[in-house]
């Protein structure tokens, strides 16, 4: 740099205090969002010679391909290239952890819709039309679609895992009361509004740059390199933002990026691959359906004594992340409750459906919902209010603090959120009011439930708990921060910018968070497990602290400032009555040849888990919350609606309360969809029948309750040393929606004065609710058959 940029003497921002961490800044892209200027992969400007790729899909769920004629595809006007697995130069398996996910099907088809070949054409429409022209002959086999057939054939994607603590066998036998429960928990389509998309540009030396809508740029980079037979340094992956992820772009984005990359390099043309909604729904993995079973022993007051719990995850056709997902279901089998003696087993069954994958909560919701049914069912059995049963069984320190995986729970917020919420939501008054209503109203019945959430924070795979950041300060004082996390709407980039701005005492406008790029920060972890801010925020903070300490050293040498006197605030640096602007200091430091670029790194301390003994400390800390939901059920149709929701959630010291509240509200409503309206139905032949927005119903605006009171727990800094003592918030609130399902069962059981435990599989559609209402005479607890 020969000539320094001229610095403008800026006025102090009048609302400076609001620039700090801890305040309700709007999302860094909010203005771009509302003006339509925020670009997603399909919005990026492309050169005129861009080509469009699409995949041809199998029309069998389990079959051997005997013949595939691709001539008609090739012959369509506008088609440029057609590839099968044989044309992939490098690895052909893109399984993220274990093998099992071929980039294109070899001769065996594992699920209906599985991509068989990819076609490249001069328009999106042509590529899609051409993809339908293949003539494929199959020898089909009976697909495995449920737990019963998978168990009969011992078809698994991974071996089972068991955790236990205490003498559960004898305790179960000796318990004064026993209950057996079976529940079928439905899966869930992510329905991110932006479908899967990738845009690949060929680079020199056979390399490629890929713009991918992914939560895991590094894994996309690695897999693209592998399928091309390249070293990773030849591949760059860039992710500015996603139009929603929710776990659906943690592993599932890779296939489209890999195919686009292979075709781009092979044809030396830019290639875009974007899935149409219906195909996205058919092709990509979903939340795992679970079949859960419990055998529990308890005393006459409803205190748990022993439990035998079994989780059966339907994993689809390959392992993907199912091992960790079923593990996380098992880790959350206790939710908030101390289980004195317990055995937990988790099975990973294979089904001939698309490979199920990460989804907000990552198995946690499916694990937690079983123990919440246990609480409600015990309450009705012993004739006490479910809230009291929950409080009595809560983790409460001392000899009641050890989880089934031998990590001690010491989380004062857990009991606080429940007790404070019971007060602020008028739980007990409303319990009486609802009792009165139900005695008077014949057709419409109301239900109420309070359920807590205790969610373990950290990746249960230890090595993923690390993050990096790269911070540049330019000589005009402006700052670029790049980190390994991706922005999918959760506001991660906003929080990271707030953290950097707070450490360096500058305005938010000074800090630019750039797109996530594998050539800026390498070897990153997926943005998942709610860990985005915890790990990337801390890494970015460490980078800022490095720069800060260099600048302080410089001030010490040049101006004899004492380190402890230097204050970075208000876009200024002050020491001992001296002051200069941050930008002036940066210029001076540059002139003195001080590096203004730094990396930051963070690894989560303390965590470990030994799978062979099923013991350890897999979680750095727990995030807690509780919700009270009130529902009304129409006994003629089973239709129901949510009258009121109250939530109290613990986010530690919030870095941005508005964004945290957004995560809580959004997570809750997404959980509401999972448990009520969102139903995945497969036909007997293994074809997904609910494959569009017309047939698969995520919550619409009228599903948001009129009374929706969401509060953050006050004065509750994280006990663990996280960035600014905040807590993760992405996933935990999702499970607060279990209160809705619990309230529905409460309303249903009002029909026989809360004596019987209704069986209510999820999603609790009007049909399931109506059958549960009707079964109140027949004493429930049988697992209804999956839909026809």
């Amino acid at each position: 740099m020969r000539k320094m940029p001229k610095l403008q003497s800026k006025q102090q921002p009048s609302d400076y205090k609001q620039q700090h961490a801890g305040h309700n800044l709007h999302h860094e892209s909010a203005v771009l969002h509302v003006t339509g200027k925020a670009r997603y992969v399909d919005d990026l400007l492309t050169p005129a010679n861009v080509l469009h790729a699409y995949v041809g899909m199998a029309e069998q769920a389990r079959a051997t391909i005997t013949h595939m004629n691709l001539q008609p595809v090739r012959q369509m006007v506008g088609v440029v290239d057609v590839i099968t697995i044989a044309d992939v130069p490098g690895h052909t398996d893109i399984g993220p952890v274990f093998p099992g996910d071929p980039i294109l099907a070899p001769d065996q088809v594992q699920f209906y819709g599985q991509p068989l070949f990819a076609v490249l054409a001069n328009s999106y429409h042509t590529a899609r039309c051409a993809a339908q022209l293949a003539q494929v002959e199959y020898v089909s086999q009976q697909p495995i679609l449920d737990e019963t057939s998978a168990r009969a054939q011992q078809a698994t994607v991974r071996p089972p895992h068991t955790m236990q603590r205490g003498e559960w066998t004898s305790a179960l036998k000796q318990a004064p009361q026993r209950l057996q429960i079976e529940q079928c928990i439905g899966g869930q389509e992510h329905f991110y509004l932006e479908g899967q998309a990738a845009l690949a540009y060929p680079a020199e030396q056979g390399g490629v740059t890929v713009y991918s809508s992914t939560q895991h740029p590094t894994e996309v980079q690695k897999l693209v390199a592998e399928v091309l037979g390249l070293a990773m340094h030849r591949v760059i992956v860039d992710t500015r933002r996603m139009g929603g992820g929710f776990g659906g772009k943690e592993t599932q984005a890779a296939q489209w990026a890999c195919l686009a990359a292979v075709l781009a390099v092979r044809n030396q043309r830019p290639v875009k691959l974007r899935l149409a909604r219906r195909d996205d729904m058919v092709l990509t993995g979903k939340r795992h359906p679970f079949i859960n079973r419990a055998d529990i022993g308890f005393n006459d007051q409803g205190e748990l004594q022993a439990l035998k719990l079994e989780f059966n995850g339907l994993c689809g056709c390959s392992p993907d992340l199912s091992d960790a997902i079923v593990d996380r279901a098992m880790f959350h089998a206790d939710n908030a409750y101390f289980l004195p003696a317990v055995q937990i087993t988790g099975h990973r069954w294979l089904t001939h459906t698309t490979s199920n994958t990460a989804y907000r909560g990552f198995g946690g919701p499916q694990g937690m919902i079983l123990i919440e049914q246990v609480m409600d069912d015990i309450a009705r059995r012993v004739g006490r209010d479910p809230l009291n049963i929950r409080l009595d069984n809560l983790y409460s320190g001392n000899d009641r603090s050890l989880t089934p995986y031998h990590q001690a729970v010491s989380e004062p917020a857990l009991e606080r959120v429940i007790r404070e919420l019971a007060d602020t939501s008028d739980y007990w008054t409303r319990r009486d009011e609802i009792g009165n209503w139900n005695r008077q109203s014949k057709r419409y019945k109301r239900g109420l439930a309070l359920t807590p959430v205790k969610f373990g924070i950290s990746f249960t795979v230890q090595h993923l708990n690390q993050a990096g950041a790269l911070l540049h300060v330019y000589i005009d004082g402006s700052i670029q921060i790049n980190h390994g996390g991706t922005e999918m709407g959760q506001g991660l980039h906003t929080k990271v910018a707030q953290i950097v701005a707070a450490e360096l005492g500058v305005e938010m406008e000074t800090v630019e968070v750039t797109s996530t790029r594998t050539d800026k920060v390498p070897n990153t972890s997926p943005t998942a497990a709610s860990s985005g801010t915890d790990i990337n925020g801390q890494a970015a903070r460490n980078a800022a602290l490095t720069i800060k300490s260099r600048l302080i050293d410089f001030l010490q040498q040049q101006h004899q400032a004492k380190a402890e006197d230097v204050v970075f605030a208000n876009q200024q640096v002050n020491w001992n009555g001296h002051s200069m602007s941050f930008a002036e200091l940066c210029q001076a430091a540059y002139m003195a040849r001080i590096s203004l670029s730094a990396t930051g790194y963070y690894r989560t301390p303390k965590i470990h888990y030994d799978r062979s003994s099923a013991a350890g400390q897999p979680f750095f800390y727990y995030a807690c919350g509780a919700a009270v939901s009130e529902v009304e059920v129409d006994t003629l149709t089973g239709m129901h609606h949510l009258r009121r929701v109250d939530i109290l959630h613990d986010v530690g010291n919030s870095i941005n309360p508005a964004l945290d509240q957004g995560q809580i509200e959004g997570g809750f409503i997404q959980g509401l969809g999972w448990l009520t309206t969102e139903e995945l139905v497969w036909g007997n032949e293994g074809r997904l029948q609910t494959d569009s927005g017309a047939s698969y119903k995520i919550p619409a605006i009228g599903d948001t309750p009129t009374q929706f009171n969401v509060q953050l727990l006050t004065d509750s800094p994280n006990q663990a040393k996280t960035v600014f003592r905040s807590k993760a918030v992405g996933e935990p609130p999702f499970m607060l929606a279990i209160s809705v399902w619990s309230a529905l069962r409460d309303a249903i059981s009002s029909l026989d004065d809360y004596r019987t435990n209704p069986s209510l599989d999820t999603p609790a559609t009007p049909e399931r609710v109506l059958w549960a209402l009707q079964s109140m005479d027949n004493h429930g607890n049988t697992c209804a058959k999956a839909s026809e």
Partner: protein
Amino acid sequence: MIEFMLNQELIQWDATVSDLTLLQWLREERQLTGSKEGCAAGDCGACTVLVGQVEEEGQLKYRSINACICFMGSLAGHHVLTVESLQQEGNLHPVQQALVDHHGSQCGFCTPGFVMSLLGWWWNTEPQQLDSEVNFANHRHEVEQALSGNLCRCTGYQPILLAADSLAPRSRADDLLLVDKEKLIARLTAINNSNAQPTTSTWQGFYSPTNVADLSLAYTACPEARLVAGATDLSLELTQKLQPLPSLINLKQITELNQLQQQERHLVIGAAVSLLQMESFLRPYYPAFADILTWLGSRQIRHQGTMAGNIASASPIADTPPALLALDSQVVLQRGSQQRTIALSDFYLGYRQTVLRPAEFIHSILIPLPVARQQFFMAKVSKRKEDDISAVCLALSIVLQSGVVQQVAIGAGGLAATPARARTTESLLQGQTLDHNLINACGNTLAKDFQPISDFRASAAYRRQVTQNLLQDFLQKALSHDALTQEGAA
């Protein structure tokens, strides 16, 4: 060649390609990527734009529509407003600012659609103070209706609702976008579209006749052409099944088919009348029908879709035919210059089959006016309230005199291959004294009337059960109401 306005620009578009959607054109040819494709089927609203049209009274009225299922040819003479045009003098529009202020976007992909739907709502309502529970509830209902076709997967909608609350009392008068409205009206009115009329069966294009005679001529010349009004169903053949639609004839510009009037014995509804117009028109006559219309599709769909389309698509799960059947409605069909009027119950031949002959079209729908003592009930059962397709839709029209059934008609959707009447049950009830035994007996006859199927929306057993529950509830209510009016009379 057609002309329309896109934001501030006059567009001349060569209408030879009939089946290009507005969204494809905006994104691919104009690089206006603010409008997003979330589903290409009118289910998510991420592509919502406003379309302005100069109405008969000279007013410029804007409606929200899904650009993904709107054919270019239908825009002739309209003003298309996209999210890119809202910022004025570098400032966010009040609607945009409200969403920013209330943290109404997370991933942002659905946001442009919400901006446009909110703008459509804001422009079409008067400023209102939300100072009482009643007007707050009415406001919320109106906002939910306006945004019923916009899905958001991130926010849970709460901040968007709060943004709407903050906008409600604000004056619309200072909206810079509306300053030059008169000029815009003049420009739109000056547009004079003419397009080539089909003369042979091999004709391809998008033709918008302005009178029924031209429509008849064109359709007779090219019976292979498809008729299009709202395109909310037809367009899915293109966007979901990738089937070309090379020859389209548009009904929307035909004045006669836009008629909506009360005649001596009937309500007359032209084939091009939108479902949204129906909502307010029907309310004085059949409020229960109007209520159900608010749950048919989304606001965007109701802006575009028509009742005639709902009938002609012959879907067994269409929501208006059950009501129309129960009300003994008729359809006026026309071919060439010949018209015939038939009962709607005779219109359906089988699954997706109707009596329509080649080159014959629905001209209008005749709904009888309510008669004395007539009671009308309707209910729709679906997994989600907004924008969902019925598992069962049921309508009952009944006339009771001192507890005796004088007239009864039951229309149902989702229970058979076509929307259908419950004839056996009607016979059971007709002329009988309605009492609990008779109401209970309906369960058996309904089982004879309908043998529904199981599909992903509901099982056959559920459909049967819920139909029985609803019908018995309707009858019970009718009986109670009749008893009350008798008391009143006594």
